[in-house]
């Protein structure tokens, strides 16, 4: 099959639809009676079903199909949106996500979903029992005026808004008509020429099997007038009568989803879907929802492979290097026209850099949107009641940071849910609301993005933390006496620390918050905690806007150039030889009252010595958390924005080097990883 080329598109779009379903189910949980949300979910599920069936992923198609039935029941109000229903929908979503993931990893998307399907079917049958009884009232259909469900109502309303005419048409065939199905087919063909059939009573399938007397009704949307419509339909022979009633906005509004009619429609739809030839009505709906998509969201976007953006970035960097050379040449030549051109080029290229960088930015929403579900699930498991508030999900971060930040955030959230928020009765006793609140907040500030996780729980139990820290040998008893509250809070990030009395599978598997801390530091960020007992705890993460361009200080060590990221620099100083002290065979300096060990880069990096400096030593004071060190260099070159590049996959673990950058003269300079230098 030549479907491979569509696979990428399929995967991307499936992910989008799953995301939409996820968001909408969460929204539905808050407002269970909002039919428009159900419609949205239905639409996504429906599209997903169509796509996966086309691509041959049958399990996926089957599951979405059953899911659709339940959704249909909800929007026809035969199924109540209960917590059970939502649970099943979520588990559906889990399965669907797993399938899509499998497909994107090259699998066939097969998965055992019988249990979920059974649960869906149970919901569908258990609470939708009214349907078959009403379905018997088919004869009433003759007299029924305008029985439409809310979905059709929206479709019709939208088409009226877009200048279409909607008609409710009753067509009567001659009683002695022999090939009724053929006539019906011809009528449909005529209608499809001028518009779209939204719905027919009886269903298309029943019409085709001639399971009707001599009369049927169709709802059409078209641009033509009612006269022309009648005229066209009457051209089909053996038709005795055509009644066309216009459907107006007012009429639609007055029809409030008639339940008996809609259950019937439901039955119709299912039959239609089972039948391939019944695509007409579905098609009409799809066309409509497509049109809706165009009018509602007019953001013009295209999908670009991230590799291409990286390539663009690479090419741009080369341009910057050439620009540097041109600037040098222009300086030497002192030609005013050349100077002007080079200056102009410099301005344009810095604009270009801004654009390329923003192209790589993605809203944190991508990471955040999976949290509400997770929080909901965990809260349920722990019998807690938790409301997750998300603020600033539109805040943008570099794609590379986004990819890495998910796990640490999950960890922190789990921590807040498990250890922070108390059980409802405990909260009640303390005079708090039974429902705990966790606020997830993201915002820009300067060159950084901050993400905060705030809970209104018990706060950090410092006594317990200290006790545990002493037990685990992280601090000694004597040390613990002189520790400040902040220092005690920081112990949470010490390795091998877990305060939970019993190990739960939510958090505290021994790999504690230290993992979070090291992950965030590896991204060039920082994490801090602030807590008030009884009131709550705030974890705040500070992240660089982008990982690929970092401000740094260029230094020279003998004849080699190195870059030190500004984020880890406290300050620079020039010290005299006499100021260097010796303690335990370690050279140290007294820096603002603190003893700071010195690291001679030329020794640790085994730099070939060309000339020995004497009296003065330039020192860059860097930090890792609370610890500091002074890096002794030979000279400071200056501050510069550098582009971080990897050393290539051959060199994976080079000591104390986090990457390389290309300087203006085209040479490569290495970037020092201060975290590795400070022990």
């Amino acid at each position, binding site marked *: 099959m030549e479907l491979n080329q569509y696979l990428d598109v399929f995967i991307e779009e499936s992910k989008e639809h799953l995301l939409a379903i996820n968001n909408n189910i969460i929204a539905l949980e808050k407002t269970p009676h909002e039919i428009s949300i159900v419609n949205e979910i239905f639409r996504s599920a429906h599209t997903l079903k169509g796509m996966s069936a086309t691509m041959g992923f049958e399990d996926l198609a089957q599951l979405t199909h059953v899911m659709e039935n339940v959704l249909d029941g909800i929007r026809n109000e035969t199924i109540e949106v209960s917590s059970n229903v939502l649970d099943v929908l979520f588990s559906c979503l889990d399965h669907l996500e797993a399938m899509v993931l499998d497909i994107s990893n090259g699998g066939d998307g097969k998965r055992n979903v019988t249990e979920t399907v059974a649960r869906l079917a149970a919901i569908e049958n258990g609470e939708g029992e009214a349907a078959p009884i009403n379905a018997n009232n088919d004869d009433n259909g003759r007299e029924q005026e305008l029985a439409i469900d809310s979905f059709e109502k929206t479709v019709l309303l939208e088409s009226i808004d877009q200048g279409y005419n909607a008609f409710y048409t009753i067509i009567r065939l001659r009683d002695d008509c022999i090939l009724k199905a053929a006539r019906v087919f011809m009528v449909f063909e005529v209608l499809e020429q001028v518009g779209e059939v939204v719905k027919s009573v009886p269903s298309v399938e029943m019409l085709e099997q001639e399971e009707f007397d001599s009369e049927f009704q169709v709802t059409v949307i078209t641009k033509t007038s009612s006269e022309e419509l009648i005229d066209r339909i009457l051209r089909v022979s053996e038709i005795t009568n055509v009644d066309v009633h216009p459907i107006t906005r007012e009429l639609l509004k007055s029809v409030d989803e008639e339940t008996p009619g809609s259950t019937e429609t439901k039955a119709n739809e299912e039959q239609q879907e089972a039948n391939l030839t019944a695509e007409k009505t579905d098609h009409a709906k799809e066309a409509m929802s497509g049109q809706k998509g165009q009018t509602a969201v007019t953001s013009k976007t295209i999908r670009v492979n991230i590799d291409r953006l990286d390539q663009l970035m*690479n*090419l741009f*960097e*080369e341009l910057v*290097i050439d620009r540097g050379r041109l600037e040098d040449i222009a300086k030497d030549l002192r030609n005013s026209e050349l100077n002007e051109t080079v200056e102009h080029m410099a301005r344009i290229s810095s604009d270009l850099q801004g654009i390329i960088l923003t192209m790589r930015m993605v809203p944190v929403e991508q990471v955040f949107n999976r949290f509400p579900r997770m929080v909901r699930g965990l809260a349920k498991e722990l019998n807690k009641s938790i409301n997750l508030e998300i603020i600033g999900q539109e805040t943008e971060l570099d794609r590379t940071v986004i990819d890495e930040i998910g796990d640490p955030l999950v960890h922190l959230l789990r921590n807040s849910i498990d250890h922070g928020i108390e059980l409802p009765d405990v909260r009640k006793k303390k005079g708090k609301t039974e429902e705990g609140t966790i606020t997830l907040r993201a915002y820009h500030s300067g060159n950084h993005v901050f993400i905060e996780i705030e809970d209104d729980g018990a706060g950090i139990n410092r006594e317990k933390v200290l006790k545990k820290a002493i037990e685990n040998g992280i601090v000694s008893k004597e040390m613990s006496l002189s520790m400040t509250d902040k220092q005690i809070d920081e112990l949470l990030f010490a390795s091998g620390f877990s305060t939970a009395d019993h190990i739960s599978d939510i958090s505290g598997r021994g790999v504690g918050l230290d993992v979070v801390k090291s992950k965030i530091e590896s991204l060039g960020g920082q994490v801090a905690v602030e807590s008030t007992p009884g009131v709550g705890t705030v974890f705040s993460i500070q992240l660089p806007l982008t990982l690929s361009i970092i401000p740094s200080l260029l230094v020279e060590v003998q004849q*080699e150039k190195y870059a030190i990221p500004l984020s880890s620099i406290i300050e620079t100083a020039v010290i005299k030889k006499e100021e260097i002290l010796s303690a335990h065979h370690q050279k140290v300096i007294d820096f603002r009252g603190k003893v700071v060990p010195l690291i001679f880069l030329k020794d*640790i*990096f*085994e*730099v070939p010595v060309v000339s020995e400096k004497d009296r003065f030593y330039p020192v860059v004071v860097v930090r890792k958390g609370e610890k500091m060190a002074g890096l002794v260099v030979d000279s400071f070159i200056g501050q510069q924005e550098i582009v971080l*590049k*990897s*050393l*290539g*996959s*051959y*060199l*994976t*673990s*080079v*000591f*104390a*080097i986090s*990457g*390389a950058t*290309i300087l203006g003269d*085209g*040479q*490569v*300079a*290495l970037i020092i990883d201060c975290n590795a230098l400070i022990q």
Partner: protein
Amino acid sequence: MNEKKVIVFQLNDEEYGVDVHQVKSIERVLPITRIPRTPDFIKGVINLRGIVTPILNLRSRFNMEEIETNENTRIIIVTVDMMEVGLIVDGANDVIDIPVDAIEPPPEVVGGVCAEYIEGVAKLENRLLILLNLEKVLNQQELNQLEQIGSGL
């Protein structure tokens, strides 16, 4: 006839060959930035049109005596297992087709290079071509071991 296209390069008066599919380009010597605390044969990294590429000296990789770079010295950029690496060789100036049946399994030691790194030896009319097994030459396990020894010092 079944033939194989190889890039021919010189190393210590011997001729070697690597499969043309593994070779991305051949460069003159560019300024190399040394990387501290890596094995001796890793010369550093270069800026290869915007991509930072590690450079190995093939002479020291095979424990041969290093020589000063001269006008013949070339860097062969090879791609193996998604890794892009440059190899410093004494010279590279030829691409030839060799019949597959002229390739013989390697003898124990050829020109000081361990048999492990050799895929085979091609006997042509008047020359002997040693075909390198680049996967082995760029074996990362060995690199990691060397690194550990290096950092242990």
